[in-house]
């Protein structure tokens, strides 16, 4: 199992256009829809937004990981986006988010996919991984930063 199984190059956008929380989530959802992982964009957005209401997934350190579990999701997938100027995401530390991971999980999910996502989540807690992500200017470098052993 490799990170590229759920996060492929065509699910990475290094230059996000959005400027607010709602639109950046939608922008990332459309990436997943394009690659065929999402059946119903609206329905999945509702799931992510619902989750966001309990408390923001802006975990601070410039990172946000909006996620949702929904039957609108066909396969577990992750989209990655980067915003140079940053977007206000109601983050824990109050600072704007620059790195976004949108995680989509179907109702009935493969344990291996969930494990992959949990490993990715753990990775983000390491400073060197975050640094590599901030510096990544190509899709390859993003995948490299997240690559698993």
């Amino acid at each position, binding site marked *: 199992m490799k990170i590229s199984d759920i996060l492929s190059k065509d699910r990475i956008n290094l230059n996000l256009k959005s400027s607010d929380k709602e639109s950046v989530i939608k922008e990332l959802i459309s990436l997943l829809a394009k690659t065929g992982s999402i059946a119903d964009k609206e329905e999945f957005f509702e799931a992510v937004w619902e989750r966001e209401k309990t*408390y923001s997934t802006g*975990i601070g350190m410039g990172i946000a990981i909006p*996620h949702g579990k929904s039957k609108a999701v066909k396969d577990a997938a992750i989209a990655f986006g980067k915003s140079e100027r940053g977007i206000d995401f109601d983050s824990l530390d109050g600072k704007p988010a620059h790195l976004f991971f949108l995680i989509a999980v179907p109702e009935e999910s493969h344990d291996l996919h*969930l494990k992959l*996502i*949990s*490993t990715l*989540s753990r*990775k983000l*807690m390491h400073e060197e991984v975050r640094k590599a992500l901030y510096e990544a200017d190509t899709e390859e470098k993003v995948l490299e930063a997240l690559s698993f052993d």
Partner: protein
Amino acid sequence: MKKLVAVTACPTGIAHTYMAAENLSIAAKELGVEIKVETQGSVGIENELSEEDIKSADAVIIAAATKVDKSRFHGKPILEVPVEQAIKDAKSLIEKALKMEKPADYVERVEEIHKKRSAARTGAYKHLMTGVSYMIPFVVAGGILIAISFAFGINAFKNEGTLPAALMQIGGGSAFALMVPVLSGFIAYSIADRPGLVPGMVGGMLAVSTGAGFLGGIISGFLAGYTVDFLKRSIKLPKTLEGIMPVLVLPVLSCLIVGLLMIYVIGTPIKSIMTALTNWLTGMSKANAVLLGLILGLMMAFDMGGPVNKAAYTFATGLLASGIYTPMAAVMAAGMTPPLGLALATLIAKDRFTDDEIEAGKAAWVLGISFITEGAIPFAAADPLKVIPSIMVGSAVTGALSMLFGATLRVPHGGIFVLPIPNAVGNLPMYVISIIAGTVVTAFMVLLLKKKAS
């Protein structure tokens, strides 16, 4: 190395659970703390904490947005925070968790109070209590063996060569006979260390033989201790002769001084006081007996194992040496009712107590029946103005009733565990009734005074 265990969980169990877990591990590593983090996420429970893990942990961190079962962490300090806290600042969480105090168990808390009080004793009170604590096992052993001898018939020990006679010889002729010398000896020991023991015990023997009883023994103990202390400081021998100080000079001189003072100066007046006291106690009218029981009861409950309580206790224990058993009965009964009454109160009126107190009430039964008056302290500390008067009234009732019924007790400790021993207690049925009455009165008083817990 300090060890922590943690549980992380979040609503969807997709990301935060794992980020929090990772962050705690990173922070723990940096702080040099061992940690094991159980994740309760979408993949199910991973890295599950074993019973061993939990047992060896200094504290527990629960970083969760969902409900986590805490029952398995019973008795550990638990720091519970929202999951995002562990992502935001795991380091300070760990520091905070390690600083948390273990939620003290009620029985442990009583033990701690007990220890603290012993350590806080100073001066004459400390020396007296040292003597009393060494004396008590002698009294317990002697009292119980005498009681067993009586079980063969109250005069059975008079037939020489029989078992009852042997038991009486062991309990009465030896263990009880050592009571005052040991009391006196260890008072002196507490004051002047080892050299105090010899004049202390010899002085105690003289207190017995001159009829000065336990009062004389207390005086001879202090006299011996301070005499040795004085001799140690005032006699200066050349270096080569220093070795004979503890084996020859101190024992001989101190015994001589203490012994002569006991025989010619102290013995006679103390004897007359003891005789007067003994006569008064044995010939006491019912009204006076009740009054004495009432006072002893008030004293036992007033500071629950403190100096006032110990004064009453020492008085009653000392009187056992003079064959007076009623105050001992009153004192033990009155020392049992405070925890028992509070336990009863938590049982019948749960709304007056906090959950912790209701839980503590269960342990208070055990402490009460074991004659550990300190068991009432956690309750009294929480609400002294309501609880202390209540237990004093209850203990006064018990003490007075016990004296009124002429209940006797030959053993200075043991709570209800000495009651089944034949003849340890005289007038057992009424003695039990005295204890029950005081327990009920205590509970009633507490409920009368204490308002509903908010």
